[in-house]
């Protein structure tokens, strides 16, 4: 390659285009990998959903009453205003906080 400013210009232009092309190609690969990974995740999710749906009736409701039985009472209705900070007062029945397993 001749050692001239014209060569420098040509090389710069070529180099810049190749840099964009290579990185754009890598970008396309990234999107392809994302698609593959998402398809795999979706397939996993589908399997998980089936399992959860079959097991859910025995597991989830058993935990929920534990929270509701501890009957949390809010002293006043909560109103939210963007102009002032929200203060919520929570009073536990019998003055006892529910056990940590309920949280």
């Amino acid at each position, binding site marked *: *390659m001749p050692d001239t400013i014209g060569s420098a210009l040509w090389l*710069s232009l070529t180099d810049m285009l190749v840099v964009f092309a290579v*990185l754009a190609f890598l970008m396309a690969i990234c999107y392809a990998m994302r698609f593959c990974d998402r398809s795999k995740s979706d397939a996993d999710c589908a399997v998980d959903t089936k399992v959860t749906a079959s097991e859910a009736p025995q597991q989830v409701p058993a935990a929920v009453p534990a929270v509701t039985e501890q009957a949390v009472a809010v002293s006043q209705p909560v109103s939210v205003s963007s102009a002032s900070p929200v203060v919520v007062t929570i009073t536990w029945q019998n003055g006892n906080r529910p056990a940590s397993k309920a949280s």
Partner: protein
Amino acid sequence: MATEIIRGFREFSGLYNFTWGNAVMLVVACILMYLAIAKGFEPMLLLPIAFGCFLANIPAAKGSFYTINPAYVRDLTGTVKPTALLDYFYFLVKSEILPPLIFLGIGAMTDFGPLLANPVSLLLGASAQIGIFIAMIIAKSLGFTLGQAGAIGIIGGADGPTAIFTATKLAPDLLGPIAVAAYTYMSLVPLIQPPIMRLLSTHEMRSTVMQQLRPVGKLERILFPIVTTFVIGILLPPVAPLVGMLMLGNLLRESGVVDRLSNTAANELINICTIFLSVAVGASMNAQSFLNLKTIYIIGLGVVAFAGSTAGGMLLGDLMWVLSGHRINPLIGSAGVSAVPMAARVSQKVGQKDNPANFLLMHAMGPNVAGVIGTAVAAGIMISMLGR
């Protein structure tokens, strides 16, 4: 007798060789140390560079331990006789051993997750290489050869190991000034970039809050380094050692099965290599070889390259801000100039000044690591075309 002893001591001690150039460089070294210690400008790099410069400019008598003689480390296949401590350090730089090892450590430290979560970042990393070409054309017009101009331009990639790697192939005689310019400007990123970033964006643009990045799956994280190594290795073999080591480091990290290797690469190995590299680079700043017109040109062109690359990233960021319906903050574009992770930190800092609720660090890491790949690609093309 006494006079001879005094004369002998004066010549042996190096006072005899003290020049105004040494004095200037000692002052420069002290300023760099001040910036590193008092101002906290990337002290990991700047402090050893500054001290290396300090060592190299203590006037040396014959047989000094602190003088780099390039003649001793000219050729791996020829007579290789490093004679002083810093000769050995410099040998590791010049023989292309340290840059790939540093890339191995960078790979092990780098999370490619933000890049994989937002692959458009790769384009920002590409646009932030424009400074390389601007500096290259100006360098050619200033009388440098095409190879030298290309090596000088790579400073704009803000990637020290790549700049050194390219300089050893295209302009070995300019390795010292190029390495110094690259590393010094990398550590001065917090000073150079912010004015350009503010100039090329409005308050509204800088205040843009970006959505949280999606989580990236392990399969993507493992495949990316393998695929990238293959693509770049097959397209641009000259930079395969750099990119290969970068991706090996990342694969060690992401595989999750070699924690000890990954930790070693990300901590002990890169720290040791950084000490050797930085001190050797600093020690190449001795007055005799550094204070000349070519060096001043290279230092000046380094600023142009850096500024050009920052502007290139910002301009594409501005375009993306418009095209995305104000969802991409253009400040992440400036992080496309490699300098991991300093440039990303600068994006975060500038963004938070305009909007304290803005957290751009992870978003900026995408273009930041894309910039590393972009610089390596640009260097690979130059070496392929000019290194014959």
